[in-house]
């Protein structure tokens, strides 16, 4: 019985400590952005790694999510002869939920893992200590450029993913499912609002902080050689993904009050 409470207590304390460490890292990062000059060369390299290299996978995901969502929506709407309502259903779902979530999870899986592995390797090979000895703060050099690159890249990737999803869903709906194109586009235009796009972009702005802080924190706290790096990489992806899904719920509820759907 005592062992159970000890375990539960350790879990709670560990979680609180983890939240504290991530909060301290985010505090250091904002402080670095506010006080230190941004390393543009590093930022451009990270923009390339996060944005340009993630583009194919994000577009592919967006395209297939859009197509399959259009097909599933059509199958249900066709029962009540609401075929042309498939357009707005797909566009609103992609803009508000599917686009931001799928893109963030893909980036968290691809880039978050790379961040944790890269920083984790630097940590176990004492390169981070070397940076400190050269009077370079690791947060200034490693976290701040990644944060800026992620904050710029993720909304752009999401917008491209949403647009690709909408275009591909249109192709499937018109060419495969035989929905009337004019009314499909008219209903999509009528019911989709700029606020749907804005809501999705605000969400991914929040998710970009989660991915960077969780992944970089796992890398910075990495211990135990190659095994530790592998563990940190896995934990970074799992923790970022779960945090994104939880944050998405609260962001949706909060944004529904600020920007009514």
């Amino acid at each position, binding site marked *: 019985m005592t062992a159970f409470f000890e375990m539960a207590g350790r879990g709670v304390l560990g979680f609180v400590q983890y939240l504290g460490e991530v909060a301290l890292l985010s505090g250091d990062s904002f402080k670095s952005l506010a006080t230190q000059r941004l390393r543009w060369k590093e930022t451009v390299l990270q923009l390339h790694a996060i944005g340009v290299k993630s583009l194919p996978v994000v577009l592919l995901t967006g395209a297939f999510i859009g197509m399959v969502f259009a097909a599933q929506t059509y199958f249900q709407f066709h029962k009540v002869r609401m075929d042309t309502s498939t357009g707005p259903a797909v566009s609103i779902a992609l803009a508000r939920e599917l686009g931001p979530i799928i893109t963030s999870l893909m980036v968290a899986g691809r880039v978050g893992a790379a961040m944790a592995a890269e920083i984790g390797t630097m940590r176990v090979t004492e390169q981070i200590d070397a940076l400190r000895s050269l009077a370079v703060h690791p947060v200034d050099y490693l976290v701040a450029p990644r944060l800026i690159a992620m904050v*710029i890249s993720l909304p752009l990737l999401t917008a*491209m993913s949403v647009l690709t999803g909408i275009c591909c869903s249109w192709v499937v709906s018109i060419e495969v499912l035989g929905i009337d194109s004019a009314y499909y586009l008219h209903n999509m235009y009528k019911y989709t609002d700029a606020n749907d*796009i*804005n809501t999705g972009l605000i969400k991914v702005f929040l998710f970009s902080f989660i991915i960077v802080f969780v992944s970089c924190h796992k890398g910075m706290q990495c211990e135990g050689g190659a095994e530790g790096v592998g563990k940190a990489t896995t934990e970074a992806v799992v923790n970022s993904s779960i945090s994104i899904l939880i944050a998405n719920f609260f962001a949706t509820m909060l944004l529904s009050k600020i920007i009514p759907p």
Partner: protein
Amino acid sequence: MSSQTNIERKVGLFVFLGILVVCSLIIHFGKVGDRFRGGFPVQVEFGNAGGLVKGAQVLFAGVLVGKVDRIKLDSENDKVMIEVDLFEGSGVRRDARFMIKQSGLLGDKHIVILQGSRSEPLLKAGDRIRGVDPFDFTDMANQAGDTIRELNKAIRKLSTEIGDKDAIGNISKGIKSFTELTEKLKTNSERLDAILRRVQKGNGTVGKLLTNDGLFEEMTKLVHNWRVYGILHQEKSEQRYPSPRQTNRPQ
């Protein structure tokens, strides 16, 4: 071209395309083009907005001529003020009727305009007109409910009355009296018919009075003399006061 320059170009292209996509999505779905279409605001007063929302369509002869811009509750007058943004050249007249209608399975509300008379001027910016309130099924159901309740009461009362033995006796007596009355009326009507037939033929005093011209003349003279001399005169009236019809006088 160095590797760094190549990366910078790719990043630049990515950021440019990304911003382009974001802007195009916001501009397209934000209906920014509609804002530059040119329109003028018109205020329409309704008693009930019927669930109309901002941005709902305004149709005139089935053509989109505007959007609902603002919905404001006028608590002082218990009215709803709906500001409609009509497109330029929509050609809606001042006495046009604005009605809230419903369309589609989802029950989307929109405003339909029925054109007014040609003699009226066109609507212009800032005009305030009164709309036709939407038909409220709830109100109708409530009224129908009240009517049905009253009807139920009446039927219940009637069935209670009919169930009473005294009431049944009274009703039977009433019906018997009514039958007797009808019989009497029938007999009297037959007698009256006979009298009227005699009168029409000129038989009897009343019949002669109606058909004999001579008797009519005499009656006229009699009435004339009564007017002039009173009922008990003695002198010969024709010597002092000629009768109104000298030529037709009886000798």
